[in-house]
């Protein structure tokens, strides 16, 4: 460290400058913080933060690799009882599972209707993975269904899967998610009708739910009613509640 002999005047002047800059910088920091806190909100969080989350999405979705698989486990490690964490979109008492049909909107006025048996006939994919809730817990669970990319290929949705996003909603429209195309086409993403080798329980989204291991649980929509495709971001229930739209791993 360098020692110097300087006049007391100079010490005073240097100190004054340093403290002034320090106080101004601190005031600027507090002002910026207050500005963020008071800012108009975009889907329940300050606009600046929403922009930040979207910038994160642009950055990290660029790193996303469809072939990078989620670690899988033997079925014996799967939880016997998969945790039930919500019943959004499942509260409609008039829902009749026997009459349920999946609606796949291929375009304006062009909707495909599929019953569960037709979906069960498609090639089956099973995945045992660490299901991660945005709350912070995770659980190894075992799911079965048809790979979304297989489903899209079999039903000739090539044109639709060239779009940017997939939207899904429950039959009562109370719960809805939007998912970027690379994530939905990841080979472990399935339209799921089985849990632990048995038909999905009602509270897990019977007859059909989404399992998308590269996303937080908030994107794993239970009881899918409608699937549609879009280049604009589909509405997303939890993103509207302040969460990150991407919510991907």
């Amino acid at each position, binding site marked *: 460290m360098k020692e110097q002999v300087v006049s007391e005047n100079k010490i005073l002047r240097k100190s004054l400058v*340093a403290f002034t800059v320090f106080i101004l910088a601190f005031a600027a920091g507090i002002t910026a913080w207050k500005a963020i806190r008071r800012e108009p909100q975009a889907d329940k969080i300050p606009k600046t933060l929403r922009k930040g989350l979207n910038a994160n999405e642009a950055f990290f979705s660029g790193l996303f690799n469809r072939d990078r698989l989620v670690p899988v486990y033997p079925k014996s490690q799967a939880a016997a009882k998969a945790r039930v964490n919500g019943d959004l979109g499942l509260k409609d008492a008039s829902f009749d599972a026997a009459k349920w049909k999946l609606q796949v909107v291929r375009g304006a006025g062009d909707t495909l209707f599929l019953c569960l048996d037709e979906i069960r006939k498609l090639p089956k994919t099973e995945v045992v993975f660490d299901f991660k809730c945005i709350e912070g817990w995770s659980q190894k669970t075992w799911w079965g269904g048809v790979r979304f990319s297989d489903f899209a290929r079999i039903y000739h949705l090539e044109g639709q899967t060239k779009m940017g996003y997939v939207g899904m909603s429950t039959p009562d429209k109370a719960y809805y998610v939007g998912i970027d195309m690379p994530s939905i086409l990841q080979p472990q993403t399935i339209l799921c009708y089985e849990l632990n080798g048995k038909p999905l329980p009602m509270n897990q989204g019977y007859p059909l739910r989404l399992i998308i291991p590269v996303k937080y649980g908030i994107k794993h929509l239970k009881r899918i009613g409608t699937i549609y495709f879009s280049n604009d971001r589909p509405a997303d229930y939890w993103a509207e509640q302040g969460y990150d739209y991407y919510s991907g791993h």
Partner: protein
Amino acid sequence: MKKIVNKHPLAIRWFHWINFPVLGVMIWSGLLIYWANDVYAVKIGGQQLIKFFPDSWYKALHVPFHLAEGMAYHFVFMWLFFINGLLYVAYTAVSGEWRYLLPDRRSWREAGLVVLHDLRIRKTAPPQKKYNAAQRIAYSAIILMGIGSLITGLAIYKPIQFKWLAWLCGGYEAARLEHFILTIGYCLFFVVHIVQVILAGWRNFQSMITGFEVLKAAPEGEEQSTKPLTPLKP
């Protein structure tokens, strides 16, 4: 005329004072996130000693039901924490400041003597340059902890795209626990740091703002080495 010693370069002062509020925001927003799954506790023989955290704490700090808000702040401010930390490490490496900072061979032995001195058990402290042995270890450890927070944080944030990091941390849940422990570490560091700064006095504190410390004219008979903040010549 007075003798001064140029102690803290301008860049390091900026990094330090930017890090302070940014880390504060990270810890606060991290608490908002942790609340949603607050499973950690210290237990001995089934007996719960400490619960992280008591409901009264949450209430007092307005923590409950702010998970989305916490995540938004956490994942924006993480960039400031990362960039500021990266610049600090780069500057320290390039400027040669690391020579004052990294523990040397004597530091491990001397750190204990420093602690004994600070606890008023031992009269004299070992001779030092800018930082004493305990400071060298603490300030180097805090850099490693920062790197640890970035690694464990990234492993939790993108456990698939960075699954090798998650693996390195011992898995997703282990990474979350490690991330939490590191944060508790910052809080403990902060407490000790504040106490030490208060004990070291105003001249030391203001050198973190002005960069220099005015040296006392050494009175007769006083030993240089007993004044922990009066550095020896490099």
